[in-house]
């Protein structure tokens, strides 16, 4: 049963409020990532060849695998909401668990990529070593890469935390077909993080790969 918070008149109102709240929060996230994406777009326009060269240094195989992993995790998340709607607690927990597993795989691959970049000397800053010609502007690409994917990874970690809370609550039987709003809202957040990656992947990994 859904507990009605004291400020609301009925569960309908409570649900409406929490859903609207989540959407607005996601809007703030769009602006947050948007600021960095704007900086990226400006520099990419100014220094396209450096960005293209730097982008080729990213591991497209790992990036593609990660994209697939994350898209699957959105599927499992959607399945989790589906199961919650039907009151299948065991399957709900399982799908949340799968989502978390896929999210963890994503992060593991990401950190492996970071480690590779570290070994290649591509962390911007004092120890940045660039084999190509335009080190300064290539450095800008990697700054954008690390900040964008780093912020994204941070949001994934928060997402994993959210998922574990949802899993525990689901296990305890808190969600029923009449009340599974937190699962829905958690799903919204997870899908958002996925969508951000869907933008980041082509922008970072697929700059001028065709040549």
């Amino acid at each position, binding site marked *: 049963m859904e507990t009605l918070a004291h400020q609301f008149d009925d569960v309908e109102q409570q649900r409406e409020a929490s859903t609207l709240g989540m959407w607005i929060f996601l809007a703030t996230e769009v602006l947050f990532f948007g600021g960095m994406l704007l900086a990226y777009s400006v520099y990419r326009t100014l*220094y396209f*060849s450096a960005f293209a060269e730097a982008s080729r240094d990213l591991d497209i195989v790992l990036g593609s695998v990660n994209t697939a992993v994350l898209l699957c995790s959105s599927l499992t998340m959607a399945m989790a909401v589906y199961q919650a709607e039907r009151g299948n607690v065991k399957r709900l927990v399982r799908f949340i668990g799968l989502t978390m597993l896929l999210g963890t795989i994503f992060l593991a691959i990401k950190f492996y990529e970071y480690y590779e970049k570290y070994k290649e000397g591509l962390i911007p800053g004092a120890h940045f070593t660039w084999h190509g010609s335009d080190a300064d*502007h290539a450095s800008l690409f990697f700054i954008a890469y690390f900040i964008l994917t780093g912020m994204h990874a941070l949001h994934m970690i928060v997402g994993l935390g959210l998922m574990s809370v949802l899993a525990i609550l689901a296990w305890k039987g808190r969600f029923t077909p009449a009340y599974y709003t937190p699962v829905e809202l958690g799903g919204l957040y997870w899908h958002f993080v996925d969508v951000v990656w869907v933008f980041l992947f082509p922008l970072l990994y697929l700059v001028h790969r065709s040549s």
Partner: protein
Amino acid sequence: MQSGFRLFPEQASTLAPQVDYLYGFLIAVSAFFTALIVVLIVGFAIKYRRRPGREAEQVETVMGLELVWTAVPSILVLVMFVWGAALFLGETVPPKGAQDIYVVGRQWMWKVQHPNGRREINELHVPVGRAVKLTVASQDVVHSFYIPAFRVKQDAIPGQYRTMWFQATKPGEYHLFCAEYCGTNHSRMGGRIVVMEDIDYQKWLGGYTDRTPAEEGRDLFVQFDCVSCHGTGSRQRCPPLGNLYGKQEQLNNGRSVLVDEAYIRESVLDPKAKIVRGYEPVMPSFQGQLTEEEILALIAYIKSLAPAPSGEAKKVQR
């Protein structure tokens, strides 16, 4: 320089009276509307003050009034916009034949160089009645070159060139201020603009035996071996630079670019940014090897190049 209390700055450039007219219009409009609102409010506060036995009368919204006081301000701001924009466009394009002077700002001084080589620090001597075009650069942080008496101001951005121009109308001395906060001695980064009669200005300039920026530029051109690619001759594999300044250059992506100070600077520091049509991207970058003033000297040299004959580039003009 003006000391003593003033309410209005001096007008010492061709632009100043024009800006002051617009300012006057803005003040008139502002004073009118401020007075109108104040009179109405004070009038209403007195006439409709709370008194026993008198209730407030509710007044319905009058659409016509709403439209009027939306439309009238709209028209007024349109006038303000057009007037301001027209004046602004005029003040951003220097007239042809304007005298070139280079300004480099750094914490916390202005370094000025005249084309004949004469240098100044925190001072700028200019002739009266002639258009002067300043190319403004910064060596470190953002500064701003501000001459209140001329009503002109231009930020000096590190890594980029900006230009501004003015034509002084009255001999005298005027304030030069830095107008973009730049650190500890921002408020001391100023000096004076000295406007002189043309004869005096020539005297002040002349008899000066230091090297011109263009001569320095030629030396750098040789020292950094630009001449091996950009010199004329059968081995030419780089765009020729004779009589290039001010022309349109065709790029390999179909676009064209105006060859101005900013383009030359970019070509020296970031040659791969724009490739001239028909040439390969083989020019190395000189980022970190030249100071702002040395780049300005190179630019002065390239400006001075006469049309390249089949032989060597002509000697630098004095």
